């Protein structure tokens, strides 16, 4: 059996990258004589979630609840995952490559002595099981052998497209209330505070993101870019240079050590496109680069580009948008 950790959002629905991971699990199952695909969920499983996972071909939804997993702790939740694994006899344990999914896979791997592969893109061959995964922020890939069973890995965001199955699964809920040892609860979350409205996940879920990099030239020179962001109803994302220089706060950073975005449109202004940044924006569907250097990696990788001084181009775009009646 292939067991996939499915993470849920505040409304209790499966997050998109978890559905991608379930889709990946189905591909793996198809290559492996149709081993059943199961899901494991912490907390509530609504009828909607159960139905959605069934539509994705999931046989059993293992629901984990109880005092031991009421507050998040990496070791506590991993011990619960381990007990589900043992009860169900799984050969594969996988999750989406989110922070939490990655952390939990690493915990289970450490506990079982197995290897773990982070950010897997594809697999080639089952015996031995060889995966290809992202390294260097996605600028290179590694082919890696996963010797042990269970094989433990995370699926990189947008490595596959989330697709419901041709044939639905039963989606039966199996309840688990594992006992968690006290030593696994020593590092548990004691409080969670909601982020400020402007620091919320707006950047990662935005349909349009305006980017700003070194080319903006200083903390006091963001007015044009901010105006464009507002006129487009977009979120602002910046490069590491911008946050390192203290021009903008870190939560706006897009890149290997910031947020990973996947908007319909990304408009990077004055961003050269270093690997560190590209790692965070390569999933954008369309990129419109504004840059003075026609040879900059961001320009050559973009779908569209305008060449020149962003401090001349962006105000002209803002004026044109207003002329045509856009923007609140």
């Amino acid at each position: 059996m292939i067991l996939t950790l499915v993470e849920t959002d505040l409304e209790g629905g499966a997050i998109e990258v978890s559905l991608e991971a379930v889709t990946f699990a189905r591909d793996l199952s198809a290559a492996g004589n149709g081993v059943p695909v199961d899901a494991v969920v912490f907390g509530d499983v609504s009828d909607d979630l159960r139905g959605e996972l069934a539509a994705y071909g999931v046989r059993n939804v293992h629901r984990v609840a109880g005092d031991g997993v009421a507050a998040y702790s990496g070791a506590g939740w991993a011990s619960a995952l381990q007990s589900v694994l043992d009860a169900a006899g799984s050969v594969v344990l996988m999750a989406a490559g989110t922070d939490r999914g990655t952390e939990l896979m690493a915990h289970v791997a450490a506990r079982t002595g197995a290897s773990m592969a982070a950010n897997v893109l594809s697999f080639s061959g089952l015996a031995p099981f060889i995966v290809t995964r992202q390294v260097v922020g996605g600028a290179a890939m590694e082919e890696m052998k996963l010797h042990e069973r269970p094989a433990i890995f995370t699926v990189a965001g947008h490595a596959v497209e989330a697709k419901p199955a041709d044939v639905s699964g039963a989606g039966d809920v199996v309840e688990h209330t594992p006992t968690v040892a006290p030593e696994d609860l020593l590092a548990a979350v004691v409080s969670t505070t909601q982020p400020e409205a402007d620091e919320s996940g707006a950047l990662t879920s935005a349909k349009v993101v305006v980017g700003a990099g070194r080319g903006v030239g200083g903390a006091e020179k963001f007015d044009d870019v901010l105006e464009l962001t507002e006129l487009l109803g977009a979120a602002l994302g910046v490069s590491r240079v911008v946050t390192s220089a203290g021009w903008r706060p870190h939560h706006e950073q897009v890149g290997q050590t910031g947020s990973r975005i996947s908007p319909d449109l990304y408009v990077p202004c004055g961003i050269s496109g270093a690997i560190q940044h590209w790692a965070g924006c390569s999933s954008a569907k369309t990129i419109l680069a504004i840059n003075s250097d026609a040879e900059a990696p961001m320009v050559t990788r973009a779908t569209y580009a305008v060449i020149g001084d962003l401090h001349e181009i962006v105000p002209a775009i803002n004026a044109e948008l207003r002329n045509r009646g856009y923007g609140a």
Partner: protein
Amino acid sequence: MASANVLVCVKRVPDSTEEVVLTEDAQAVDGRRSGFTMSAHEECAVELAVQATASTDGQATVLTLGEAEAVEQLRNALAVGCTAATHVLGDPFAFGPGDVAREIAAVVRDHEAEGRVHDLVLLGNDAADSGDFQVGIRLAYELGRPVVNGASTVEIEDSADGPVVVAVGEGPDGQETYRVALPAVVTIREGGVEPRYPSVPGRLKAKKVPIEERQPVSEPTGPGRVKLVLPPPAPSAVQILGEGPEAAPAVVDLLEKLGVLTPGKVAP
């Protein structure tokens, strides 16, 4: 309060602002052209180690597993306030995350046997090159200590039951706080502190600190790597809409075509 000693683990990685080049055997990233740096998360871990020890009058020790050249990253950490350094000599690409965790654990145990306890071990959340995301967690299990993953700040506080580390980081539903009794392991994500630049006196002082050199305690089992591959070069398909502000109408035409605009009131 009692002084707390911190061990911070760093890795010399190829600077990833340039194009990635692989070694001939495709087992490693060749950083000779791009130059080398420390992973961004670890720069913040070093800063947090220096702050935490300064506030408690403790010692901040920096550790790396790497080739001889990785001494540069140790000296950089000493220059910003670390007070001791340990260098485990080895080719980091030959070590898997479990191997690295075992080597760090051996250092922690040996130091402890000499009376140097590392109350808190800080690491980066993930290395910028190998991207394994697991050394800190595996280390915690090696040492039998609790671990917090992906914190952006840490502070050491006294409590009725002894010193604790308060670690704060971004979780899926907001900012999460952990309070964990020492000794503990915490992995750090960039964003909570601004790493300081080394001063000239700091650099001079760093040159004089003796560096403990060690050989690995066991043969690495390896990372399970078959080989590294680079994505095929994608030919540029960019469509240049124009140059300078004259391109603005073409840009807005495109935005209309993409359907990303919502008509609204024209602002004054």
